[in-house]
């Protein structure tokens, strides 16, 4: 029996994670992380969410605390997010939050406070023998969150529990309902927590960096149109580029805020045979043979082979937006992860 600290966001998944651990006989304490200091009461981890987490904890007979990490969150998640957008990259802040806060800062604090394990409500699993555990896809493929858990260090993988990874989302909600948890029917948050709380990406970024209109150009440099905010365009994007629709769709192939341009091309122009991942890290041992690679939070896994820090796609695939996480899977297990250059 372990003493586990459960990160409770006030949502149904982390509520059920706490319930499952309690049921398994662990000594459980719940904590809500205060990450974002915005005054608006929307998005993840608002005061109402903390109240929900606390109510669930009370129902489960579990102590509940709040830990403030607003400064760290600002410095390690929000600022890099803003800087990436200013540079025309497409960051994934949830990955950075997991990397720096949930599975680093929180883990260190949990250990210092006498907890054996940290648990979250992520839909994923941890598999493998002690010392060589890896993140694996959750039982509910449609809800799988293994992608955003790729940055977990080896130490984090040993000390983390993911109780809801074996359940489908409907099983999670059913269990929450059975336990009479007020979060059983709570809607999922649909966007990055701090962006949602600030009224959307354009409002959030617009308050922090200058957003510039840009020229939409083809690969020969011919100007085809204009966009409002270059910094909000993502590689691979088709809509919102100020171009007429029709039989010959154009996609953003490159985004250059410094030059003020979005380069577009055909679907074929978007295809590449590789993605460079200079910060690629293997979870345990490198895999030389065929793997699959997922390049966005809900992207289809693509067959590939990893050669050093180059991921070579087996057949041409759509270009990966710079800044997105590239996660290498061996069957269902996260074998490696990094960031697209």
């Amino acid at each position, binding site marked *: 029996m372990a003493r586990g600290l459960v990160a409770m966001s006030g949502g149904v998944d982390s509520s059920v994670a706490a319930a499952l651990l309690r049921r398994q006989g662990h000594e459980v304490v719940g904590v*809500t992380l*205060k990450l974002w200091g915005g005054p608006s009461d929307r998005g993840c981890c608002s*005061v109402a969410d*903390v109240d929900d987490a*606390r109510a669930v904890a009370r129902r489960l007979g579990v102590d509940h*605390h*709040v*830990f*403030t990490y607003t*400064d760290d969150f600002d410095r390690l998640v929000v600022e890099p997010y803003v800087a990436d957008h200013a540079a025309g990259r497409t960051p994934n802040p949830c990955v950075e939050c997991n990397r720096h806060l949930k599975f680093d*800062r929180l883990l*260190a*604090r949990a*250990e*210092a*406070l*006498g907890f054996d394990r940290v648990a979250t409500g992520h839909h994923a699993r941890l598999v493998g023998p002690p010392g060589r555990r890896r993140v694996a896809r959750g039982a509910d493929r449609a809800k799988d969150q293994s992608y955003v858990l790729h940055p977990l260090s080896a130490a984090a993988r040993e000390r983390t529990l993911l109780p809801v990874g074996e359940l489908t989302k409907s099983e999670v909600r059913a269990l929450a309902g059975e336990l009479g948890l007020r979060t059983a029917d709570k809607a999922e948050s649909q966007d990055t927590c701090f962006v949602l709380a600030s009224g959307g990406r354009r409002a959030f970024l617009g308050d922090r960096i200058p957003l510039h209109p840009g020229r939409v150009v083809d690969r020969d440099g011919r100007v085809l149109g204009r966009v409002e905010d270059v910094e909000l365009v993502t590689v691979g994007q088709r809509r919102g580029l100020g171009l007429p629709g029709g039989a010959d769709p154009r996609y953003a192939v490159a985004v250059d805020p410094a030059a003020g341009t979005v380069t577009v091309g055909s679907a074929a122009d978007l295809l590449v045979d590789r993605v460079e991942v200079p910060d690629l890290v293997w979870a345990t041992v490198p895999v030389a043979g065929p793997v699959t690679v997922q390049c966005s939070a809900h992207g289809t896994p693509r067959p590939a082979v990893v050669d050093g820090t180059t991921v070579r796609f087996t057949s041409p695939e759509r270009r990966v937006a710079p800044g997105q996480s590239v996660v290498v899977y061996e069957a269902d297990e996260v074998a490696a992860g990094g960031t697209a250059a």
Partner: protein
Amino acid sequence: MTPRYLDHAATSPLRPEVLGAMVPVLRDLHGNPSGGHGPARAARAALEEARDRLAAVAGCAAGEVVFTSGGTEADDLALRGTVAARPGTPVCSATEHHAVLDVVGRLGGPVVEVDRRGLLDLDHLARTLSQAAPVAVVSVHLVNNETGVVQDLDAVAEVVARHAPGAVLHTDAAQALSWLDVAAATARADLVTLASHKCGGPKGVGALVVRDGRAIEPRLLGGGQERGRRAGTPDVAGAVGFAAAAELARVERSDLVARAGAWRARLVAALVAEVPDLVVTAAPTGSGLDHAAPGWVHVCVPGVRSEPLLFLLDDEHGVAASAASSCASGAQERSHVLAAMGVDPQAAAGSLRLTLGWSTTGADVEAVASAVPAAVARLRAAARHGVAV
């Protein structure tokens, strides 16, 4: 594990005598004091007796006591009630409780700086009053809830009289009843906020002393209670409990001050001995804590963050303490008081407030004197790459 309660500045346990005074009122005096029949008159009598007793402690006339639902409501009534009654800007110190600071901020009024020891900068007060003219009300608290620093209201009143002669002087004395002769300390204030639950009285009741002749627009309208200054059926039991607690606080004050003074010295000495790089917040250069009420030990611990420190103190040692203020979510907020005092934000991140009160024992103090260094040592050992957990 014996629980050790070191958070009297947040609230204090109800005194047994106070409970004893309140139960018969709750049980038997059920009438509405506004009525005319027997039960109403009996309740009214209890309310008015409580008013008399509180007035004696506060050094004012009974008719100058307005019962409210607590210190926050009294602050609101003082500030908004004054501004509504007379033209002008509100002004307050930078280290007020949010119940004052946020109202002044909402009304667009300026704040006056404090020095590194937490004392109001009287020169800045003078300049601010001149610049903000016409000033409706100046609000300077008596005892700071985070640091225990005591302001010299007589000196403040002098400056106000000279630079904003028409302005009303309000003081939030919510923390003061256990520690000071409130009647003497607030003699020159026009409006005084008093709170019940900081000195062993019940929560949910407070008072605003409104000196005769000071115009206040009521915030709550309805039945015209409290001579038209604060409508709503009064909490008679609460008022009785409040008066009992205030009287006990006055009677026992010099003993408590002496006991707490010794305990504070003991705690500070023990903490400084075990954690030599710790900073006593209101006395950063070892200049002494004469200007702070003896119930407060506020320190900043380098290399440690408040939340895990408080967690360990509570979880491992049964010690209830706090840092700055708690916000609505239960998290600890960054302290505007420490910021105003010029405490470095890194240092302020490791703040710890231990506050003593009527129920504190010597055993509590000894337990805390060893618990804090133990918790600090454990957290420092857990820091990785120089980052506090």
